[in-house]
């Protein structure tokens, strides 16, 4: 129980510090949101009016307090940049709420692909004694790790979209309209995210298993008369999973926080793309909430990994 309280306090403190840091960063970077919104042709009276509307004529401390108290009350404010209709700006909650499912489903699909492919692949690789298979896998994983995901995205689009016509490039289908079509389209960006991660995870698992296979307990298990199968899956894999779980945790945090580049390449209206455009247009309310979301996701995933550890290795919680 004490453990949870400690974790939650750390979470709140971190979120607070991050929000202050992001706010300060916005004060420091050049660029003025009013000019960004109004361009170069607006009458000066309009600039004044907008400054007043957005509360930009107040001192920074007042602005931060006002924003923070709103967030605590659940009011995330309105975007500076995106309109809801002719006269209203889009509430941040609505804006992000609409984009979040895209990023989360993309993350879920990628993760499923990663886990489904990398773990069996890693195990088979570790067990394989064939030098040719080993060399081939080594080569393939090395290459797929080295390819940057945006380039992989372009390759996937070209190959599956233009050559094989399996999907329409940029033909993103909204989850509101057609959920199956939405998932079908997401499969390809998910593939671009998954390929390098699969390679990394499989390599990681293989190396981890090979190290474990040299341990004393493996020899003991064999001498006890355990079958190879039993040793591999019952003992080695479980121990070898420890570092892999941490690694998967890192990957989850990375993709749930928004796959900026891949979203860009596939034209997905997700969190990552929203973050980039919000920073570019100095859309402070949106950027702050997105940064807080990402911080939260990272901390939360590590927290889950922590718990998973205790499940895999009961010794940790005993300490």
């Amino acid at each position, binding site marked *: 129980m004490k453990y949870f309280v400690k974790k939650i306090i750390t979470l709140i403190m971190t979120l607070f510090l991050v929000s202050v840091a992001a706010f300060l960063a916005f004060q420091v970077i050049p*660029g003025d949101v009013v000019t960004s919104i*109004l*361009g170069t042709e607006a009458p000066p009276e309009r600039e004044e009016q907008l400054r007043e509307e957005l509360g930009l004529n107040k001192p920074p401390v007042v602005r931060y307090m006002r924003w923070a108290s709103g967030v605590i009350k659940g009011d995330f404010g309105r975007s500076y940049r995106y309109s809801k209709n002719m*006269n209203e700006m889009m509430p941040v909650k609505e804006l992000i709420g609409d984009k979040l499912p895209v990023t989360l489903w993309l993350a879920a699909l990628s993760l499923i692909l990663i886990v489904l492919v990398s773990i069996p692949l890693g195990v088979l690789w570790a067990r394989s004694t064939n030098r040719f298979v080993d060399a081939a896998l080594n080569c393939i994983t090395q290459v797929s790790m080295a390819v940057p995901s945006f380039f992989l995205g372009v390759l996937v689009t070209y190959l599956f*979209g233009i050559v094989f016509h399996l999907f329409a490039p940029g*033909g993103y289908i909204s989850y509101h309209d057609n959920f199956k079509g939405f998932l079908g389209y997401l499969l390809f960006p998910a593939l671009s995210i998954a390929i390098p991660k699969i390679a990394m995870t499989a390599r990681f698992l293989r190396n981890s298993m090979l190290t474990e296979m040299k341990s004393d307990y493996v020899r003991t298990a064999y001498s006890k008369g355990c079958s190879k199968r039993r040793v591999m899956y019952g003992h080695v894999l479980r121990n070898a999973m420890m570092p892999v779980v941490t690694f998967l945790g890192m990957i989850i945090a990375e993709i749930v926080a928004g796959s900026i580049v891949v979203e860009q390449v596939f034209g997905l209206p997700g969190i990552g793309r929203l973050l980039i455009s919000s920073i570019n247009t100095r859309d402070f309310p949106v950027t702050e909430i997105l940064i807080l979301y990402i911080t939260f996701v990272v901390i939360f995933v590590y927290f889950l990994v922590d718990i998973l550890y205790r499940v895999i290795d009961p010794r940790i919680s005993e300490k």
Partner: protein
Amino acid sequence: MKKKLFSLLLTALLSMAVLSGCGSDGTGESSESNPSKESVESTQASTGTEVVEKTMYGGKVVVGIQQDIDSLDPHKATAAGTKEILFNIFEGLVKTDKNGDLMNAIASDYSVSEDGLVYTFTLREGVKFHNGNVVTAEDVKYSLDRVSGLLDGTPLISALSVITNVEIIDTKTVQVTVGSANTELIYSFAAAIIPAGSGEDENASPIGTGPFSYVSYTPQVGIVVKKNAEYWQEGLPYLDEVNFKIVNSAETALMELQGETIQIYAYLTDSQAEVLKDKFQILAAPSANVQALFLNNADPLLSDVRVRQAICYAMDKDTANLFVSGGNSVLISSAMLPALTSYYADLNDAYGTGAEVEKAKALLKEAGYPNGIDLEITVPSNYEFHMQTADVLVEQFKAAGINAKINPVEWNTWLTDVYNGRKYQTTLCAITSDGTPGYLMNRFQSDSKKNFVNFASAKYDEVYKKAAAAMDPTEKANYYKELQKIMSDEAGTAFIMVPPITVAVSPKLGGYTFYPIYVQDMSTIYYK
């Protein structure tokens, strides 16, 4: 134990799936519906011969756009990328036609008093808003009061802030009084007419009188419009629906064109057009952009006219044109667009379009820099075209002893530091004309808020005042030509070229029309 681990992973996955919200299983939309059989025949001039082309009514088109829109309020939208879309939804009393001339839109007629201070507009019979209501004089008064600041003290469009009174004469006539005469003001009456009171309504969706009506807007995805069946221009528009889809980058645009996700995409680069030319109709026309190496005249080094002239001489516009736009740009030596033929003064001979290295060197030596100078070129890095041009210039300048280096900055930084702050030495970018010749000239008056090059010439200021006051078109044109000459003699800025707009249009479509201002008119597009 193994099972436990697996079930944990599964739970994590599942809970993530649940958290991410549920989407509904709806019906899929086909990307392109078949045009209806109803068709008309129209004659269309192409490649010199008259061909009869079948134009069909109906169908959907997806147009790729580069930026997200900045406002759904036509009076508050400032980005060129937004205005080019809203042109399809909203109209003013007058509007610009494809030749850059004014045509009557919501007004069927107008007259201007001799002193240029009173405009009388007669409203066209039976023009309807998208909500079905007929446009009344009240709507016109409301809209003009709103943009001019008479409504709440805050003008929304600078040019129209000179309006001092809007009076309803009768149900079909509106009289507008302005504070000072300006023959170019009439262009600004293209400002959108919206239903009275809609600027204050919290849930107002954008309602105009244009050929298309607003359907929906999703941030980062795009804006959808549908046919206005009651549009006052007989026979327009052809299409049932147009989807303006935001495309992230030039690379994805290329993919989406090839995958036929989008059917029209403007602003192609030269190399992209080359890739697409077998599968698409590639159309090109001069843009409304005046590209230049803007020189900060207040900079210690550049305050010397000889240094500025040396830069103009050292620049090889021919090569730059060839490298960055495949030779398709129009070279210029003044701020005026060559398309505005009656106002444009061809001054390309003044400093030549090729590099005149010896003259540049001599001028620099005379100015006291026998060993050359160092120059910083600030470029908004999001503009690939300007970045490439800057690269070419840096190479060219070397021969004349000008050691230039590029300082790429992000767009917002450019706006605050360069444009508003005027803290730069030289900057490579473009000004976009609003269609009026005065727009390109008035910014170089020494006290203009838009004079970011700090150009200061008493003679220029004097001539500009005469030009603004002139009521006779020929007289006005002559003053404008004189202004261009003064600017060129002073080498106030090194003008380069007017780049082309290159558009890829699906071979199934016809009717794409270019305008001398930034608009994408979808009303004339049809399926062949």
